[in-house]
């Protein structure tokens, strides 16, 4: 293997110089560790299904070192891959499984990485093919002039078209515009909020007429969940949106939607 020759320590520096020249212009070209790995595999003319982990790992680490030498911030994702490579390499160095159990075949430690690389390669190529298409507004144009007939006619009532992202984004834009204290948001922390819980209960009541307290907490029977759910119920009760029943002492708690007002008034 001619590439193995680079493994010697003394050859390490010239190799690194090569990296400087080769990559300093193209640093941003690597779209993450998978992309870099594919590049190294191609450069070394390796078979993607039978890569030499030793070669690839060394060159990969050299590359990261080169980035550091150039004072470029190395993204965490690249380091994760470095760890993966080192781990595969160390597993390859481990003695093979016990002779006593020959039937249990050790999976090749490279398998998972190879699978990911192959799959990544597919999407990278597909992305390139898609990106090379003639795009509307770039290579291909639709009619831009408006029909006088159409501008004259007024749109009446068609089905609405809007995306979820637009909805959230509208809300976000609004929040940025107004001071935070205008909100009656409850516990915006990381944990389950009463507001979320209220929304959940209202949603349930759209589908069924009665809901049992136990149903709400069954999937997640934690102290926090029970308390938050209970507070949400109290809040809904206070707003007169639901009515609560309890069959017997310590019996299960039921609730039903309070009769909705007629929708004539706005």
């Amino acid at each position, binding site marked *: 293997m001619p590439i193995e020759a680079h493994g010697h320590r003394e050859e390490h520096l010239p190799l690194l110089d090569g990296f400087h020249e080769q990559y300093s212009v193209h640093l941003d070209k690597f779209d993450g560790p998978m992309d870099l790995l594919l590049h190294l595999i191609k450069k070394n003319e390796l078979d993607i299904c039978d890569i030499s982990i030793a070669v690839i790992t060394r060159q990969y680490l050299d590359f990261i070192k080169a980035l550091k030498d150039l004072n470029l911030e190395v993204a965490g994702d690249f380091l994760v891959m470095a760890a993966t490579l080192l781990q595969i390499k160390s597993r390859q160095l481990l003695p093979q499984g016990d002779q006593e159990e020959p039937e249990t075949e050790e999976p090749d430690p490279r398998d998972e990485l190879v699978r990911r690389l192959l799959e990544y390669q597919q999407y990278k190529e597909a992305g390139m093919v898609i990106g090379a298409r003639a795009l509307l507004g770039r290579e291909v144009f639709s009619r831009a*002039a408006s029909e006088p007939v159409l501008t004259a*006619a007024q749109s009446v009532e068609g089905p609405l078209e809007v995306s979820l992202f637009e909805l959230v984004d509208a809300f976000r834009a609004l929040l940025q515009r107004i001071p935070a204290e205008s909100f009656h948001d409850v516990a915006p922390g990381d944990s389950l909020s009463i507001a979320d819980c*209220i929304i959940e209960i209202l949603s349930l009541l759209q589908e069924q007429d009665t809901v049992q307290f136990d149903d709400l907490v069954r999937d997640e029977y934690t102290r926090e969940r029970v308390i938050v759910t209970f507070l949400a119920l109290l809040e809904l009760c*206070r707003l007169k949106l639901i009515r609560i029943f309890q069959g017997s002492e310590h019996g299960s708690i039921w609730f039903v939607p309070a009769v909705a007002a007629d929708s004539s008034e706005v």
Partner: protein
Amino acid sequence: MNSELSSIIESLIFSAESALSTDRICELLNEFERDEIKAALTELIACYQERGGGFELVEVAGGWQFRTRPAFHSYITRHIKTRTSKFSQSALETLAIIAYRQPITRAEVEHLRGVDCGGVLKSLLEKHLVRILGKKDIPGRPLIYGTSKEFLDIFGLKDLKSLPTLREIQALDEQPQYERQEELQLEPAKAIPVESDLPFE
């Protein structure tokens, strides 16, 4: 059926936002002779006169434009009358507030938006995107609003729980956190040779 040049001219007229004058076409296609362009344009005009079809090439406001034939206007207006409409920004904002802050009163919506929302609210109710949940037990007993089943349908949501939270959208902007590596399904996440001396060999 046409010459290459008349196809080029056709594509220019087709994609232009307003009528293109012969002068402007000559200016854009300066590698061609004016006479050539005029000939190709004449060819194109003749072709459209002959062809019939749903639209024609007409000379308006000193330039050339494709327009649908007046005979078909009644069909065309059917489309515009029932085409999908986009939400206005105010409708979207109001709907977003109701979706994320329900149950909510009109006064609370207006407090957040800083403007009157009566009209928007009415139209959201008419479109059945918003519904009245009840009355709030405070002086004046204002109506309380929430989103409807149709709201879920339009956004393709299974339930209100599936509504993306603000936090989830904001999280897209955030720097990757190292805890997230657990999701990467890689075992060695713990041992990351972060600093300086990367072991070679």
